């Protein structure tokens, strides 16, 4: 259904040299992908991402999900120990032909991006009427 386009986003996404380099680190979000009746659902763990800092883009068959983590640490705090740095989540997937491109929807809740990819009418089984001569 939805195959992963690139496992390493490093060569394809960050080496363009167009984006200014920041101290953010790029990482692949953990995803769950499943199909339910007529739709494929992709869920990506992106803690600290909200509606305005997430981006879902479809270019030909490549679906790119991107999210910028915003951590509200008040000013003046000095880090003591850290297990995560401000992260840019990026991952790309190949969308198969049976997905209806125009009906893809996405939402963010509690740091999880959910993309719903419905199956198009063209991909559903159809009964062909038999004509009599």
């Amino acid at each position: 259904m939805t195959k992963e386009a690139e496992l390493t986003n490093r060569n394809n996404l960050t080496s363009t040299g167009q984006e200014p380099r920041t101290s953010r680190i790029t990482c692949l979000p953990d995803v769950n992908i499943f199909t339910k009746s007529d739709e494929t659902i992709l869920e990506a763990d992106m803690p600290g991402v909200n509606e305005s800092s997430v981006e879902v883009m479809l270019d030909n068959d490549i679906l790119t999900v991107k999210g910028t983590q915003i951590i509200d640490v008040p000013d003046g705090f000095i880090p003591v120990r850290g297990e995560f740095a401000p992260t840019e989540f990026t991952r790309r997937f190949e969308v198969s032909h049976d997905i209806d491109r125009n009906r893809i929807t996405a939402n963010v809740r509690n740091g999880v991006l959910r993309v719903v990819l419905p199956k198009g009418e063209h991909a559903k089984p159809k009964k062909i009427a038999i004509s009599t001569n």
Partner: protein
Amino acid sequence: MSIKDLIIRKNRNETPARRFEDNSLFSFQRDMNNLFDNFFRGFELAPFEGLKGPAVASFNPNINVSETEKEVHISAELPGMDEKDISVEVDKDTLTIKGEKKEEHEEKGKNWHRVEQSYGSFHRTILLPAKVDINKAKAKFKKGILSVTIQKTEDEQKKKKAVEITTE
């Protein structure tokens, strides 16, 4: 025994409610996985996918700690959780975050293609950089990130004192 379990806990009867706590091999493997993940995260590289088997992928949130002279701030990554499933406890100099990230895999009619998100109960106790006033703690949960701000005790705030420098 997990490396993280070595952190001093005030209440010694409390053991981390991790799924594979009894299996030292699993917890060691998880720590090694975390080590690799963190290492590669820093180099803008993807972690080794193959190392994260579903059996060891119990949920373990990342935690950041920062401080000012008066307060301690803790943030934890808890994607996909609801505030009602999280509990935060503050002791004199420790903070415990407990909770359960529920699995919805039982739902019928789902055909799975990829499962990377981890689930399960977690329990993390961290040592705070200073003694804190347990009555002055604030916690909020937003966008999958838990932030806790706690005021340091008066004594702790007074600890640091600028030393006057005189010239002769």
